């Protein structure tokens, strides 16, 4: 159904599980998880990831630092990144865009919004 290999980055196992379940129900069954930006960078080296869903607030390396690092690496320059976070301030969104996030969802999200954003990034 989908050839996406998705990296789910969130420090909350609960949230990772919700995102994973939602993605599976939307037909995206290939995914790996990471608890912070550092782990995510490691996962990127180990798997053929072609889509990233990341939280912002995380320990060690937060989502913004992770995306900034990602965009500084030529290999991941064009990798689609969708940020799902509780941070809903205008400045937050602008900061995320500046860091290189391709789209943004404020938690709590619905499966429909997630699907819509994924489709938009893939189109």
């Amino acid at each position: 159904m989908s050839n996406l290999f998705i990296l789910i980055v969130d420090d909350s196992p609960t949230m990772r599980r919700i995102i994973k379940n939602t993605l599976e129900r939307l037909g995206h069954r290939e995914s790996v998880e990471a608890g912070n930006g550092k782990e995510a960078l490691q996962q990127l080296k180990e798997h053929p990831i072609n889509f990233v869903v990341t939280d912002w607030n995380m320990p060690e390396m937060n989502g913004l630092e992770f995306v900034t690092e990602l965009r500084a690496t030529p290999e991941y320059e064009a990798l689609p990144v969708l940020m799902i976070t509780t941070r809903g301030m205008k400045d937050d969104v602008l900061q995320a865009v500046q860091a290189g996030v391709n789209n943004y969802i404020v938690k709590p999200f619905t499966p429909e919004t997630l699907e819509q954003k994924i489709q938009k990034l893939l189109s």
Partner: protein
Amino acid sequence: MGSNMIKNDDYGEILTRIKQIKSLFAFGEGILPFLEELFVFLKEVSPLLNDVSESIMNTTGLMPDAANELDTAVAETTDATYQIMNRVEHIMSQIDSLEMAQNPDDTEASQMLSEIRTDAMAIMTALQFHDIVSQKLVHVRKVMAEIQQKMLQLFTRVYELHIEEEIKENILTTFGVNIEKFHKIMDTKIHVDHRLTADSPAPNTEKQAPAASFNQDDIDDLFG
């Protein structure tokens, strides 16, 4: 004779007042460097003051009970959320099995299964609230730790002021501090604030000023 006694008492009272005023001047001199900080702080946290100071004294250097209760609340709700998730995932896998086993021509059954799946997914996505609330609780816990640390810094500075013991104790009592316990803490050199600093995460400086809130529609507009 009686009137002389009254006069003497009056003089005594005046002398006492003068002594108190003298002490107040000494106190004023000593307290000026942090007076402003103190009032700003009081204005901000006065509703919490009694509970927090009592908590500090009771725990003598450990994190306050309230913070531990928040941790427990987060852990317990996480467990409960996991149990719900397990059930929902089980329901979903049962729906998958039923869909594979059912007669493809039975549209009514298909419709019913589809509705059950939608309901199950709705439960799963609703569990996001657990994560959102947990994050807020963790933030409250950090704020509490920071308030606690600031309180201790203030108490310590008052304690170290070169002013009369009585005035010093009056100030600390006003804060709800148990003087006896506080003396013990200071005398035995238990640096509670250091421990708190070590235990508490670094203050979150990511969001300092209130900013304009964005809803999902605004964000969608931004991304086109």
